[in-house]
């Protein structure tokens, strides 16, 4: 079974600074998808960024980018120019195989606090 590990339960960053959230995973599959989701306090879970394992180029979405190291099974999220609205729980997720209905397997999350 695939496992997803987020080793930082809590992080804090000042507004306008850059922060990196770490994620490692374990799988024997070669083709898969990885995601970062954001869950603001009492609000809906939303997709931040996705990465296809067969693509070597790191995904980027505005201020959000990933460092995908397939051999090391590492998938970190970098948030540049942090904003107060980035305060949220961030979940790294691995898409499981077709046998599991393409469901997402989540890490335990990192609580990010952006301070003024």
């Amino acid at each position, binding site marked *: 079974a695939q496992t997803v590990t987020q080793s930082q339960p809590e992080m804090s960053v000042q507004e306008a600074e850059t922060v990196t959230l770490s994620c490692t995973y374990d799988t024997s599959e070669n083709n898969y998808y990885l995601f970062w989701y954001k869950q603001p306090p009492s609000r809906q879970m939303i997709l931040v960024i996705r990465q296809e394992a067969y693509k070597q180029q790191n995904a980027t979405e505005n201020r959000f980018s990933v460092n995908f190291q397939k051999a090391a099974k590492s998938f970190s999220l970098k948030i540049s120019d942090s904003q107060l609205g980035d305060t949220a729980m961030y979940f790294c997720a691995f898409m499981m195989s077709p046998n599991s209905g393409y469901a*997402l397997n989540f890490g335990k999350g990192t609580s990010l606090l952006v301070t003024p």
Partner: protein
Amino acid sequence: EADIYQTPRYLVIGTGKKITLECSQTMGHDKMYWYQQDPGMELHLIHYSYGVNSTEKGDLSSESTVSRIRTEHFPLTLESARPSHTSQYLCASSGSIGQEEGYGYTFGSGTRLTVV
């Protein structure tokens, strides 16, 4: 606007009551999922569905049941609620583009259930 809806948003009920948590999506997605989010924010897959008349249990053992009679509707039922069922329940859906998976996981706002 295409979206996924969960009702009720909050529910407090007594032990032994039967409850149904509703989840509906307007995107025509074939796959739907239920996740249980514990107080520590960790997410566990409890049920999923490939499509109409298909339901499967997830990784976390759950006393709940689900049904998928219509594409857009994926309700979750607890026959006899207990305090251990107190949690947040998130519904999600995903579709595919051609043969490509890994797109467009959309989450509902969640139902926060408290059993007293």
